[in-house]
């Protein structure tokens, strides 16, 4: 890595959180950021990757199912395999599960409705690239905006995730209590974010990039977006 870290924001056809992620990274976090088109075949020069929210391919079939086969996904898998920090937000999270870079799947919200509201999450692991330095049990306030955000994995997988510390955050009340009232989409174990075993790839349903400025409702998301700068941006060659 030479000089300032560069964050790549991948744009798939139908991504719509791409501008927000780019803006937050540039203006609020203050790093260099650029779009990476889904047809690109290399991530060279990129130190961290964000897969933004949206409706890639209209969310047709399943969210993320078609985007997963985009050309950029091959270098992304390599990048992730080499320990490069990757953050999938909302639709980006769905793409990462479809691509088997993260465990589990995201189902239709239990209410069968789209949910847009500010939510609270409790950080469960500070051992990931995107939560380093955020003490466990810290409560962050972030907006959600999804129709299919109900995290699912079978019981064995969940047990494994628990054992390996791969559950990154759970929905909670403002005071940090994990209960059903705050688990509005019906996620297994109130899971809002998970990581891969190495901790460099994180998927999160709420939107940190939309909580990067007090003027628009809150800035807790900056803590996640910034965490990656605290060392994890030691990118693969």
């Amino acid at each position, binding site marked *: 890595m030479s000089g300032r870290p560069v964050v790549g924001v991948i744009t798939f056809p139908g991504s719509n959180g791409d501008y927000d992620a780019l803006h937050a990274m540039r203006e609020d976090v203050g790093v260099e950021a650029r779009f990476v088109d889904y047809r690109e075949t290399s991530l060279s020069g990129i130190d961290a990757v964000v897969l933004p929210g949206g*409706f890639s391919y209209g969310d047709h079939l399943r969210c993320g199912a078609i985007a997963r086969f985009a050309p950029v996904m091959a270098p992304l898998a390599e990048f992730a395999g080499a320990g490069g920090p990757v953050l999938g937000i909302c639709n980006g999270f769905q793409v990462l599960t479809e691509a088997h870079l993260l465990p589990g799947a995201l189902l239709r919200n239990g209410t069968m409705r789209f949910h847009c509201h500010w939510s609270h999450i409790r950080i469960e692991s500070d051992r990931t690239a995107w939560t380093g330095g955020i003490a466990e049990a810290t409560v962050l306030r972030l907006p959600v905006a999804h129709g299919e955000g109900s995290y699912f994995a079978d019981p064995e997988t969940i047990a494994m995730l628990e054992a390996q510390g791969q559950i990154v955050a759970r929905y909670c009340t403002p005071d940090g209590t994990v209960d059903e009232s705050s688990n509005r989409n019906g996620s297994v174990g109130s899971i809002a974010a998970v990581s891969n075993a190495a901790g460099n790839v994180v998927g999160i349903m709420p939107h940190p990039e939309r909580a990067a400025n007090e003027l628009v409702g809150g800035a807790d998301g900056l803590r996640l977006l910034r965490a990656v700068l605290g060392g994890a941006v030691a990118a693969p060659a």
Partner: protein
Amino acid sequence: MAIPDGAWREVALSDDEWTRISELLGREPTPVELGMFGSMWSEHCGYKHSRPLFRFFRTSAPWVIQGPGENAGAVDIGDGLAAVFKVESHNHPSAVEPYEGAATGVGGIVRDIFTMGARPIAVLDGLRFGHLDVPRNRYLFSNVVAGIGGYGNCLGIPNVGGEVFFDPAFNGNPLVNAMCVGIVPHDKLTRARAEGPGNVLMVAGADTGRDGLGGATFSSVDDPEASHRGVIQVGNPFLERQLIEACLELLETDDIVAMQDMGAAGLTSSLVECTSRGGVGAEIDVQKVPRREEGMTAYEVMLSESQERMLLVVRPEGVERVTGILERWSLHAAVVGQVTDDGLVRVRDGDEVVVEVPAGLFTDECPTYEPEAKEGERPIAARARAVPADSISDPEDLFGRLDQLLGSPNIASRRPVIEQYDHTILTNTVVAPGQGDAAVLRIKGTTRGLAISLDCNSRYCSLDPRLGARHAVAEAARNVSCVGGTPLALTNCLNFGNPRRPAGYYQLSQAVQGIADASAAFTIPVVSGNVSLYNETDQSAVLPTPTIGVVGVLDDVTRHASMNWQTDDVLLLLGAGEPTLGGSEYLAVIEGESWGQPPALDMDAEVALTRFVRQQIAAGELRTAHDVGLGGLLVALTEMAILSGVGFLADAGSIGAGETAWFGESASRILVAVPANASAGLLTAAEAAGIRARPLGMAGGDAITIGDAARSLSDLARTWETGLERALDTTVSATA
């Protein structure tokens, strides 16, 4: 091919209109021409019954960059930027297929905005349905909301406001109005005028199917279901998202002469409007239009309302570049013809010419009507009927009524709707829906913000359409002022019944004049709008509903107001509006119907009051404001308390006792809250500005206390929060 006798009626043309068309052409039209006339001379495209009324509108001001006549209006908002906006109805399609009808309504209004070169930054929606105890209304409501969310959420444009209103008059005739606002640098504003003979016409976006054939004409006849033939339009927001990005990128090149979206009447209206605005002619070959279905006729291609399509006028040397850009966004495009200099719209089907008509015959020659206007008996009687005198003075009983109002569908929290719409995307939302009287959006790269509100009290309009329309403008402008915005201009959507009934035309013509009155008094010109008539079934028409969207600007977006107050704030009521139960929601909820003389509107007082409030906000003196609307003073105070999570204590004397004091409605009343040490200053400033200001009490505690009587805030909040869900699903109990 000869036209069978009477066939013109199937495309909603009258016998006289048929004769006129034949005279103008000097021959009988071909079938394709007839279909095109049917669409272009429909109410939707031709504004037959409304155009003559538009002369009343004030449409210009120094800050107006584009008035009515283009795809949307535009106003200067400073920093070299313009706000581009318009509201449009999708009532009839939504009555037939609520999800897709509402979804494609959003798709259509968004296309109007980016066609002007503007990047869409907000959507609002004004919805009206019959009561939710009718299963069909529940179905319509749930699916309309899902459709608006489904399309807008996928596009990634935040939905930041609107209205939901229920009244039995909307049984079978829901109203679905969608507004979109976009931002564009002045020099990028694009107008849809075909120019330069030899320039190339291209169709871009979705392939053409048999969607919605006859849509434009079916909004002009009484029974949408019966007259509807062809296939229901199913929208593809994913494709539209690509189209937005591609079109905005295309406008960065010098290759585009004009751009026109295809909405009602599809290729017909986009071709005709583009050529007639530019004073040129055009020739296309329908065989070159990419199709989704086999065996489509020229008629079908010309009148299809397939969504997500654009007509582009391209310089010949740019065709390749344009095609390349579209392909990069995975969009099809095809060259279908070119601009000509003979003023004719000529359509070929291969070698055969199937249409050859001077463009102006479709537009300028469209007949207009000013039928008889006569007020109906019912509104006259309803207005004359005296409202009940106050009979309740015990605060406990008044609190009981407050409970009833808070839980009623027109007043209860809109959260179940708002939460189905993405309102945080684009990260501009400073005051979110439900948090203030209008939405506030920041404009990135500047210090400014926009304030936007969409309003209409249909009930006032039904009792007195001219006064009601003035109220609609006043309310939208007041809402914008209450968050700190200076109203700049308005857009309107005229939703009415059959104008050929004298009572219907009376409502329409009076409402237009009411809009014109208030628009002039408040200096907010009309820059765009849309008309939807024939919203009636079986002699029962919708409440006349001139929906008004107002856009305002905040020079410093950090100085804005919301409904939130803080413990120990002093509560003041500004303005001299006199509450009345006439036309009130209180009567509708308690008596099952509303009647009487709606509140008076003193437009000078309203102007002074709203100017004062936005000046105080801009000066940083005021951060909490909420106008008194449906449900009156106590409903407004309680909404603020619930949203703030802080109760209040008011002096019984300052609130007053009785239904009128608690629940009566008026214009020109704004509740504000300021820290105790600022209240004297505000009172002095109000006095200096000639604004009546009355202290009501203080914010604090977890109850609403008026004199000796109190109600727990959490109980009231639960009633208000669950009201809409309860009405929707009888299995959800009040305590759930």
